[in-house]
């Protein structure tokens, strides 16, 4: 089948899609956007988190056909050209990136959190990111990154620079 959708602002067609394919597979293998990751492919790890019509979802749980006519934003669509999104920059500055496999999903999830709640509490950050597994960092620096991104978004950008 053919599936047509908008991804990162671009109208995109995928041809010869088998009905059993997930949106994640189509993004990764058919339209050249492998940034969303394939760690469990059953909605447990969050590494494939994308925006579907503005809602953060696991792309592995969306059938390709369900994406027809919809608006998708992936991790590749967060930066403004060479300028990283503040959440991406905060992950770097806080040292929240190790192997990086969970990073795209966590960044999209944290991005969605800060979009709906500009100054989340400790417990709110943990709850919002609880569907995203990370095996390297123990989450400590990820917490730092989200706090840092929230501070910067709130205008307290004077603390620019590395943490740790």
């Amino acid at each position, binding site marked *: 089948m053919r599936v047509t959708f908008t991804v990162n602002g671009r109208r995109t067609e995928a041809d010869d899609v088998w009905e059993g394919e997930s949106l994640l597979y189509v993004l990764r293998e058919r339209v050249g956007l492998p940034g969303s990751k*394939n760690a*469990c492919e059953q909605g447990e*790890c969050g590494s494939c988190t994308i925006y579907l019509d503005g809602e953060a979802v696991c792309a592995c749980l969306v059938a390709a056909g369900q994406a027809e006519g919809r608006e998708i934003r992936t991790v590749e669509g967060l930066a403004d050209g060479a300028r990283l999104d503040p959440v991406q920059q905060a992950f770097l500055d806080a*040292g929240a990136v190790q192997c990086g496999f969970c990073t795209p999903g966590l960044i999209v999830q944290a991005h969605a959190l800060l979009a709906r709640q500009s100054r989340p509490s400790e417990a709110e950050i943990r709850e919002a990111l609880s*569907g995203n597994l990370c095996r390297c960092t*123990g989450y400590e620096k990820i917490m730092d990154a989200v706090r840092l991104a929230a501070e910067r978004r709130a205008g307290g950008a004077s603390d620019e620079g590395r943490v740790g």
Partner: protein
Amino acid sequence: MAEDTTRGTPVGLPHTTAPERDGVGASAPRPDGVLKVRGDFAFSSDLWHEDMLWGTTLRSPHPRARILAVDITEAVALPGVHAVLTHEDIPGEKFYGLEIADQPVLAIDQVRYHGEPIAIVAADHPETARRAAARIAVTYDVLPPITSPEEAADTASHGHVHAPAEYKARADGNVVHRQRIVSGAGVTDEVRAAADVVVRGDYEVGMQDQAFLGPESGLAVPAEDGGVDLYIATQWMHADQRQMCPVLGLPPDKVRLTLAGVGGAFGGREDISMQVHACLLALHTGRPVKIVYSREESFFGHVHRHPAWLTYEHGATRDGKLVYVEARMSLDGGAYASTSAAVVGNAASLAIGPYAVPNVAVDAAAYYTNNPPCGAMRGFGAVQACFAYESQMDRLAEELAMDPVELRCRNAVEEGSAMPTGQTVDAPAPVAELLRRVRDMPLPPTGTDSPDLRELPGGVSNTTHGEGVVRGIGYAVGIKNAGFSEGFDEYSTARVRLEVIAGEPVAVVHTAAAEVGQGGVTVQGQIARTELGVGRVTVQPADTRVGSAGSTSASRQTYVTGGAVKTACEAVRAAVFEIGMRRYGWSGEMVAGLALAAGKVVAPDGAVVADLAELLGGEAVEETRVYRHRPTQAFDKVTGQGFGHVQYTFCAHRAVVDVDTELGLVKVVELAAAQDVGLMVNPAAVLGQVHGGSAQGLGLAVMEEIVVADAKVRNPSFTDYLIPTILDTPPMRVDVLEHPDPHAPYGLRGAGEASALSSTPAVVSAIRAATGLPLNRVPVRPEHLTGT
């Protein structure tokens, strides 16, 4: 201070007086960081090639069976299928293995574990490949499996996992390897009589999975010269290559590996998974072949941490001095050897922990069974031992009515202490200091009258508002070796080039060290900046065009590949000074005092002698060097004596938990750590290692276990195998000590594993403190706390 026997590298701190920006000691940013946050970093599962086929594996549903027939007719007939291969299609050797080549690439006439590969398929779509694999008809004669070390030891009743005629391991029966250690007078009746207090315990550690997030994957591309190029996520490309060449029937120059992005490793990528399978399919079809395991297949596709059964006896005087320790350990190695022998060596030699004990007797063995193969995982034999000896230390403290930290400090090793192997600890060993540091950290506040549900055991499941919740605090400390042990020659190779690009001196570093997330690529650049005094460093992709770097394992890469990069930089620096000698007539005496800093050649008084870019001119200086740490020795088979380990590393934890004693739910409130790393080459990366290891130890303490029943894996998914989420993982305060190791480059200590040891017993100790239960098995489950 002991004499420095390190070859190739002088002792001491960075040579340059003016530290380079992002040099050694700085939290330099990761060179791959921007790509990773943008989603543009190419992991091994992201690769794509024109005309690429997809490979998949048919695996055994039985843990032990004879294969009577394999019929591929139906599979081959499926449109879109390009190859279906069995062991009969292998051109070369049919067995491989990291230490002992006892594992068939594809099963030959029998299977020995649930999930053993039998056939491989290449097709034009992954679903086609899966359907084809499902059409392969295998006829089995199913046999009763050997399900435990206990059964394995009884060969008369249960037989052999590997028939005696085909036995390849070092011991016999079903024993992969046994290591005994006897020190002092051993543990005799006479020795026992000298103890005022004796505590005995039986402990059990479940099978933990590395659960790296990036699944096993790679892309094999057949080449015109009849060879193959493999882009792969692994921990040691040259070890993969060494095992692959005989199977493929190709020389090393035709089996070329390039490291693709690695989504975590933790030991699980030491053994080969899909490497040979992808290359066999690519060479057979003449098309590039990509294999990506699903999470379910990943649980079958790599080795796990050895489950262990441990029996300990500790004897001490009334004032808390250990008189003796006796330990017996049985490790379940599963169907194939993998690294079981080395794991046994570690478990045995580190069996009693970081304590000075005059009389010791240890007997450790790994057994073949029909359970999933076990091998390397972060901590490597020392994790299992640490849970047992630290549980024992708590028991002993209770028996003596002594503070558990005080008891540990009284017996802690220090520099100059002897290990039970007879090896003297010849570098700082601040065990007592680490314990006191975690003890003295401020405690987290106790619960309020109206706590946030999310801070309570059970969380938003709303299982308690604080009633039945008891707080506990526990401590533990551990000892881990860094580097491969027992005489293993594990050198690393670095090629460093210095040249002028656009008027600026630039260093290019090339090694085969696998970056698995730990930040090795960052550290290599930092060392080059410091040693060569340049701002711009490029770390080239790791591949087999340069000599082996050894494995990204055993907390060793910063030490060994770091040492290689440092040594190669020193050679480059000497070559640069030779240019000055030739061109400007610098004397040998003058050159001996020179350094490179901020793009200049600098005299000891700080005066600039020459501009580096000018001195180099159009010349590129390139040097390749091999670095070896000081040699180690095998342990004596009978007594276990020997200078077996390169370096010791230490970490201590304090865990604070809240336990809902009615429901058996545990909330770890805080997990504080103190670790000595000699010197923080990259402080941010060091913290990341301590945090990550601590979280994995927490997982083993309260949730992580591959459930194996009748030798079958029952929970091969992230739905059923739980790893800590951000809600399960508490704030982790970390204190890092830097007592330099005089034998190591920059005085550094391997930082990757120590935190994965003591975290587990500290959490369990805290749960014991809250509940009063003995808790001799990890992971601790709710039913262990409620007795239901």
